[in-house]
C-alpha cells in the first residue's frame, strides 16, 4: 500500500521556488501543505490536514511572484492556492511576513492573554504562531469583547473569550463529524461557537475539539481538573483499550497518575482523531474501584500495604495451591502476551478464552471471515484523501447488523467521510480540488455515496441511507441469504437487470432472471424484497463496495450468511473489489482468535468439567486461574455453580467486578496505562502499547504475575520472565511467528525518552518529594524495553512509537507534520506492519461447508430456542457505556440518562404500557428496571434496552413476554432511588478521585521504591 502511495506521489511532484530555493511539492494538495511537507515554518490556523482549506483566517499568506524578475509580487493565501510547476513564492519577504504579523495582532486584540491559567498553555498553537510571526509586543489598548461561556457537559470545557474565530471547531463538529447541536452564531466581532443553549455535547467526537481548537476555547475537563503542563508529562505510546479499532494514543502521566490521552497519529488507522470513549475513558485507571492490594494471600499478616510486595511470603502462601489442577480463563481485553503465557501455563487442553458455546461458534466464524477476507486499511483513510493518493474509494457502503456508532465510534467517523466520496467526485468533475473544503461542500450539497443499512436498531446512519431497514436478526439473515441468491443468479445468467426495471417491477417477472428473483424473495415482506432487490442491483453495479458488519449481535448464522455473500461477490470478475470490515467486540478479540482451536473449552464446558469432578469426588478438585475476565455473560446461577464446584479461584484483575468478589485470591493487575504488551485490532494488526508509568506495588503487570505463578505455583521457573522481551524471545525460540514479528520491530527501536527535553530540570520533576537527582531509575528491569522513564534517551520522535508529539517551535499536536514524510503521509519512522497471521486451524480445511456447522455444534453445542411470540433484547446502551471498562468513569455515568426500554406500539397496546411507565425486566435471572419509551418504528418482537447493569456481551437475547412486567409501586420507588443514587455516587466518586489523586501528588514518592524487588542494585547516588 505504502509503495503505491509513494509511487504516485513521485509522479505528482513539481518544482516550486520558495525564496528562490527549489523545492519539490506535490500537486495533490495545496501550497500550504506543500510548504509544510518540506518542513518549512508557515503559520496557519483554519487549515487542518484532514479538514482541508477554507481560507478563513488569512494567516498563511505568502507572496507569489510572476517570474524571477518580479520583485513585488502579490499576497496569496497559501492554503487556497494550488501548486503549479515552476511557481515562485516568498516566505521570508517583508510584505508577507508583516502581513502575517498583523493578522495575528488583529486576532490577539480580543484574546484575553490568560495563558497562565489556560489548560492549553505550553502546547498552544496560538502561542506558537504568535511567536513564529514575531508579534511579540502588545499594542492594542482598547476594550476586549467578552462572552458568556456554556456548560457543554462533563467532558469538554468552554472559554469563548480565547476564540480567534478560525472556524475549525464548527468545521470538525458539524461538517466532519456530522454533529447537529453545535454551530457558529453572530457576525463580525461577535462570533460565537457553541450550542444554541447550554447542554451536553451530543457527539461522540467532541473531545477532538480540544485538539482541533488552536487555542484554549475547548479544553479537556478531566485533564484541567488534575492539571499539569505538557512539558511536565511523562508520556508513552499506547493503544486504546476501549474497542477493537485499536486507535493509537499517547498517555500522559505525572506523579504516578494518568492525566490524559491525546491522539497519536497513525497514518493507517486513526489519523488525527479519537472518539470520546477512548480519549476520556482512560480515567478508569484512576477509579476508586481499582484493585490496589492483594486479596487472599498473606492473610495472617493482614492486607499488605500499598507500595510493598514481598515475593518470599507470596511464594510461601501461593505454594499451598501447587498441587491443584488449574483451568486458565483468558480474556479479550488482556494483552496477547498474557493470554499466550496463560495458555502455556495451564496447557492447551485446560485453556478457555472465557467464551460461551455461542461465542466460540461466533469466534470461529469470525476467524474464518478474517482468514479469507483480509481487513483492508479502512479507518483513517479519510485524511489520506487529502493526500490525493487514496487508491480505493468506496462507491457503496452497506452496514449489516452492527451499530458501529455504539461499538466502534471511530469507525463511524470514518464511514461518515467515506460517504463523502461521491461529493468529492462531483466537485472534481468541475475542477474543484478535494482540499477546497467549503467549495466542495457547497457544490456537492447533499450528495452522498450510496448507503444501505440493515440493522437491528436505529442508528444515525438511517437518516442518510438510500435504504434502511430495522429487522430482527433472523430477518436480517434471511435478507442476506436472498441477496446472495439474487446475486448468484445474476452472475450465473450474466443478465444484469437494469436498475429501472428492478425498481418498477419489483415482483413482476420480466424474463427468466426476473422470475427466479421472484422465487428467491418469497420469504420476504414487500418492504424487505424491495430493499433487497435495490441493494442487489446497486451492489452489482458498484466497483468497490464496502460491507461493514460485526459480532455484537452474537449471531454465528449472521457471520455465516455474510461469508456466503462475500464468496458470491468474490466470484465477480475484474474491476470489482468488494471489501469486508468486521468489528470485533473487544480490544484484543482478534488476538484471541490466534489461540482458537478445537481444544478450547467454552465456559459451559469449564463449568461442566468442574461440576463433574466435584460430583465424582464430592469435593471441588479443579481450580481456576482467571485473567482479566468478568464472565459477565453468565447467569447468576452459572456463576454460583462455577464458584461452588471449583476449589481455588485465582483472579488477576485491575478493577473490582463480580468475580473478584467471589475469588479466593485476587492479584492486582496493572491497567493498560501501566503495562506493556500487544493488542491485535479488528484488522489483525499487532500493536504495541507501553506503560506511561510503573504501577504502585503490589499492582504488577499481568505477565509478571503469571511469571510469579509459573515459578511458585506451577514450578515452571523458565516461564518467569524478567522482561516482556524475554517472554517474546522465549516464544520466538519455539518458532512462533508473532513473537518473531514483534521482536524484529522492537530491534529497530532505539531507547527513547518518555519525558520531554524540558524535563531537563529533572530535580524539579519530583520536587514535591526531593530535589535530589532521581537518575535513570528503574532502568534495570526495563533494560530491554524501547522506552526510558527519563528525559535522557533518544528524541521522542525518532521512534515509530512516538510517546508524544513535539517539534521545535511547534509545541502542540500540530507538530505532527514535522514527523510525517509529507502532510497526511506516513510517519518518518513508520514501524513495520505487523499483521497477525490467522491461518485457519487444520480441522477447518478439509471440512465441507455443510459439516462445519455440525462440527461446531458438536464441539460447542448451543441450543437455539425458536418460539413464536418471543421478544428479542437488543442492546441500545449509549456509546460511552458500550464497553465494560468505561463504566468506571464517573463522568460517563453522569452522562447516562437512566435505564430505558424501547418497545413497539403493538406490545404497548397489548400490555397497556405507556411512555414513562417503569417496567421490570428479568434477564438471566437478574431483575432490572427501566423507563418505557414507545418507539413507533420498532418491529413488534424487538425490545431495545439501555440498562446500566446489562453488559454488552449480552445481546440479541430471546426472552418471553413473561420476563417483562409492570413494576409495583414499591419497585418504582426502589428504581427511582437506584437511579438517583447512581448519579449521586458518581458525583461523589468524581470528587473523591480528585481528592485522592491530589493527595497522592503530595505523598507517594512513587519513583523511589516501586521496583525495589527487581532492580536490586539500583540505588540513587
Amino acid at each position, binding site marked *: 500500500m505504502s509503495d503505491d502511495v509513494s509511487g504516485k506521489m513521485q509522479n505528482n511532484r513539481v518544482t516550486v521556488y520558495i525564496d528562490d530555493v527549489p523545492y519539490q511539492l506535490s500537486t495533490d494538495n495545496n501550497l500550504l501543505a506543500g510548504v509544510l511537507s518540506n518542513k518549512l515554518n508557515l503559520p496557519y490556523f483554519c487549515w487542518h490536514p484532514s479538514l482541508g482549506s477554507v481560507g478563513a483566517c488569512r494567516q498563511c499568506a505568502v507572496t507569489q511572484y510572476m517570474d524571477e524578475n518580479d520583485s513585488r509580487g502579490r499576497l496569496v493565501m497559501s492554503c487556497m492556492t494550488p501548486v503549479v510547476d515552476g511557481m515562485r513564492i516568498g516566505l521570508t519577504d517583508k510584505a508577507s511576513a508583516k502581513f502575517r504579523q498583523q493578522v495575528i495582532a488583529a486576532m490577539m486584540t480580543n484574546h484575553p492573554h490568560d495563558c497562565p491559567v489556560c489548560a492549553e498553555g505550553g502546547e498552544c498553537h496560538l502561542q506558537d504562531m504568535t511567536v513564529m510571526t514575531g508579534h511579540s509586543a502588545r499594542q492594542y489598548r482598547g476594550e476586549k469583547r467578552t462572552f458568556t461561556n456554556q456548560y457543554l457537559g462533563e467532558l469538554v470545557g468552554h472559554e469563548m473569550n480565547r476564540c480567534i474565530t478560525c472556524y475549525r471547531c464548527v468545521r470538525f463538529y458539524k461538517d466532519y463529524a456530522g454533529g447537529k*447541536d453545535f454551530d*457558529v452564531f453572530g457576525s*463580525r466581532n461577535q462570533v460565537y461557537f457553541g450550542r*444554541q443553549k447550554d447542554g451536553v455535547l451530543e457527539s461522540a467526537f467532541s473531545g477532538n475539539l480540544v485538539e482541533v481548537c488552536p487555542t484554549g476555547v475547548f479544553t479537556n475537563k478531566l485533564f484541567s481538573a488534575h492539571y499539569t503542563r505538557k512539558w511536565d508529562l511523562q508520556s508513552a505510546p499506547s493503544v486504546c483499550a476501549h474497542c477493537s479499532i485499536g486507535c493509537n494514543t499517547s498517555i500522559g502521566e505525572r506523579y504516578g497518575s494518568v492525566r490524559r490521552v491525546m491522539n497519536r497519529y497513525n497514518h493507517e488507522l486513526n489519523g488525527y482523531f479519537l472518539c470520546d470513549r477512548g480519549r476520556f475513558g482512560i480515567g478508569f485507571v484512576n477509579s476508586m474501584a481499582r484493585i490496589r492490594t492483594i486479596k487472599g494471600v498473606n492473610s495472617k499478616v493482614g492486607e499488605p500495604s500499598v507500595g510493598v510486595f514481598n515475593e518470599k511470603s507470596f511464594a510461601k502462601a501461593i505454594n499451598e495451591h501447587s498441587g491443584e489442577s488449574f483451568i486458565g480463563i483468558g480474556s479479550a481485553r488482556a494483552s496477547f502476551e498474557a493470554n499466550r503465557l496463560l495458555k502455556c501455563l495451564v496447557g492447551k487442553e485446560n485453556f478457555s478464552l472465557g467464551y460461551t458455546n455461542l461465542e466460540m461458534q461466533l469466534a470461529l466464524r469470525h476467524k474464518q471471515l478474517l482468514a479469507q477476507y483480509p481487513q483492508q486499511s479502512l479507518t483513517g483513510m479519510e485524511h489520506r484523501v487529502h493526500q490525493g493518493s487514496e487508491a480505493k474509494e468506496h*462507491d457503496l457502503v452497506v452496514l449489516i447488523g452492527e451499530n458501529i456508532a455504539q461499538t466502534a465510534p471511530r469507525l463511524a467517523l470514518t464511514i461518515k467521510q467515506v460517504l463523502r466520496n461521491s461529493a468529492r467526485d462531483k466537485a472534481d468533475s468541475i475542477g474543484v480540488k478535494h482540499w477546497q473544503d467549503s467549495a466542495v461542500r457547497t457544490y456537492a450539497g447533499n450528495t452522498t455515496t450510496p448507503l444501505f443499512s440493515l440493522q437491528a436498531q436505529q442508528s444515525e446512519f438511517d437518516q442518510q441511507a438510500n435504504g434502511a431497514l430495522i429487522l430482527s436478526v433472523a430477518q436480517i439473515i434471511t435478507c442476506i441469504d436472498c441477496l446472495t441468491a439474487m446475486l448468484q443468479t445474476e452472475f450465473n445468467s450474466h443478465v444484469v437487470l437494469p436498475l429501472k426495471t428492478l425498481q418498477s417491477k419489483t415482483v413482476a417477472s420480466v424474463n427468466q432472471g426476473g422470475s427466479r428473483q421472484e422465487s428467491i424473495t418469497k420469504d420476504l415482506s414487500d418492504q424487505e424484497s424491495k430493499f433487497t432487490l435495490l441493494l442487489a442491483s446497486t451492489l452489482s453495479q458498484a466497483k468497490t463496495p464496502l460491507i461493514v458488519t460485526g459480532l455484537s449481535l452474537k449471531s454465528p448464522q449472521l457471520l455465516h450468511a455474510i461469508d456466503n455473500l462475500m464468496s458470491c461477490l468474490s466470484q465477480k470478475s475484474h474491476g470489482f473489489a468488494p471489501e469486508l470490515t468486521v468489528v470485533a467486540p473487544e480490544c484484543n478479540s482478534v488476538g484471541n482468535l490466534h489461540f482458537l482451536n478445537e481444544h478450547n473449552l467454552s465456559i459451559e464446558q469449564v463449568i461442566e468439567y468442574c461440576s463433574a469432578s466435584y460430583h465424582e469426588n464430592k469435593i471441588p478438585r479443579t481450580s481456576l486461574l482467571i485473567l482479566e475476565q468478568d464472565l459477565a455473560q453468565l447467569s447468576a446461577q452459572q456463576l454460583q455453580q462455577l464458584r461452588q464446584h471449583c476449589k481455588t479461584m485465582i483472579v488477576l484483575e485491575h478493577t473490582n467486578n463480580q468475580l473478584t468478589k467471589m475469588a479466593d485470591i485476587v492479584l492486582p493487575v496493572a491497567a493498560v496505562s501501566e503495562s506493556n504488551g500487544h493488542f491485535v485490532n479488528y484488522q489483525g494488526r499487532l500493536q504495541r502499547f507501553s506503560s506511561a508509568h510503573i504501577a504502585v506495588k503490589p499492582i504488577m503487570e499481568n505477565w509478571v504475575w503469571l511469571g510469579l505463578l509459573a515459578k511458585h505455583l506451577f514450578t515452571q521457573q523458565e516461564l518467569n520472565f524478567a522482561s516482556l522481551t524475554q517472554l517474546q524471545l522465549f516464544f520466538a525460540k519455539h518458532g512462533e511467528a508473532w513473537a518473531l514479528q514483534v521482536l524484529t520491530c522492537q530491534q529497530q527501536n532505539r531507547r527513547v525518552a518518555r519525558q520531554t527535553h524540558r524535563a531537563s530540570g529533572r530535580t524539579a520533576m519530583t520536587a514535591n518529594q526531593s530535589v535530589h537527582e532521581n537518575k535513570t531509575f528503574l532502568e534495570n528491569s526495563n533494560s530491554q524495553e524501547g522506552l526510558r522513564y527519563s528525559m535522557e534517551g533518544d528524541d521522542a520522535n525518532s521512534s515509530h512509537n512516538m510517546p508524544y508529539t513535539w517539534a521545535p517551535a511547534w509545541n502542540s499536536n500540530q507538530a505532527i507534520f514535522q514527523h510525517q514524510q509529507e502532510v497526511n503521509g506516513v510517519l518518518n519512522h513508520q514501524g513495520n506492519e505487523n499483521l497477525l497471521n490467522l491461518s485457519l486451524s487444520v480441522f477447518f480445511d478439509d471440512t465441507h461447508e455443510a459439516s462445519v456447522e455440525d462440527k461446531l455444534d458438536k464441539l460447542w453445542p448451543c441450543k437455539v430456542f425458536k418460539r413464536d411470540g418471543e421478544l428479542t433484547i437488543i442492546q441500545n446502551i449509549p456509546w460511552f457505556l458500550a464497553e465494560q471498562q468505561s463504566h468506571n468513569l464517573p463522568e460517563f455515568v453522569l452522562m447516562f440518562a437512566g435505564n430505558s426500554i424501547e418497545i413497539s406500539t403493538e406490545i404497548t397496546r397489548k400490555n397497556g404500557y405507556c411512555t414513562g411507565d417503569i417496567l421490570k425486566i428479568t434477564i438471566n435471572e437478574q431483575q432490572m428496571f427501566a423507563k418505557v419509551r414507545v418507539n413507533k418504528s420498532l418491529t413488534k418482537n424487538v425490545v431495545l434496552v439501555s440498562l446500566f447493569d446489562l453488559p454488552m456481551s449480552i445481546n440479541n437475547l430471546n426472552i418471553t413476554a413473561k420476563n417483562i412486567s409492570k413494576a409495583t409501586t414499591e419497585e418504582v420507588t426502589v428504581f427511582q432511588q437506584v437511579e438517583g443514587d447512581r448519579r449521586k455516587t458518581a458525583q461523589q466518586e468524581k470528587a473523591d478521585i480528585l481528592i485522592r489523586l491530589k493527595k497522592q501528588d503530595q505523598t507517594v514518592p512513587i519513583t523511589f521504591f516501586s521496583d525495589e524487588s527487581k532492580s536490586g542494585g539500583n540505588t540513587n547516588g
Partner: protein
Amino acid sequence: MNNSDFSLQPRIPSIMVTDEEIDFRQYLSATELSVIEHEVSIMETREAAGIEALKIVQKYRGWISDDSLIAIAQCLQMSSAQLEGVATFYNLIYRQKVGHYVIHLCDSISCHLTGYDEILKVIQTYLGIGYGQTTPDGEFTLLSNVCLGSCDKSPAMMINGQHYHSLTNESVVSILNGLSKNAGDIV
C-alpha cells in the same frame, strides 16, 4: 452514481435537537407555511430556504422568537442550531422583540464623517432610548448599522426598509414625528 436514481423511501427527516413541545404545523400559520413551502420548492435543498423562511415569519410576527426559530427549523428539517447561526448572522433578522419601527442608523465611515453622532444624540433624546432599546410604548427600536450604501447622501438611516438620506437634526425629528403619528393611527 446519482442519488436520485434510486430512493427506496423518502429520507427520514432528521430527528431534531429542539423541544418536542412545538409542532411547526400548529405553530406556523397556513399562510406562513404555504409561502415557506413555495420558497422551498425553488431551492435545491430544504435548508436553503432558511433566510427566506425567517423573513416570512418575521414579516407576520415582527421578530423571531425562540419558538418561531424552533418551528421553522423543524419545518425545514434542519437543526435549530444551524438556523440560529443564520438568524444571528443577518442584522435584519431580529431575535429579540423589537418595536413597531426599527431604526437602523448608519455609523459607517461616510456617515461618521458627516456627523452621524449628532443625529444619534437627537434620536436618543427624542425617543429616550439608547442602542438596542425599545421605547416603552413599543413603537421604536434603535439599532446601529454598518453602511446602508448611501455614502453620497450621508448621514443616512433606514426605518422598516425605508431609507432616509442627508439627515439633519431637524429632518430626523420631523421624520420621527410623522412616524409617531402614523403609529398612533395604526394602533
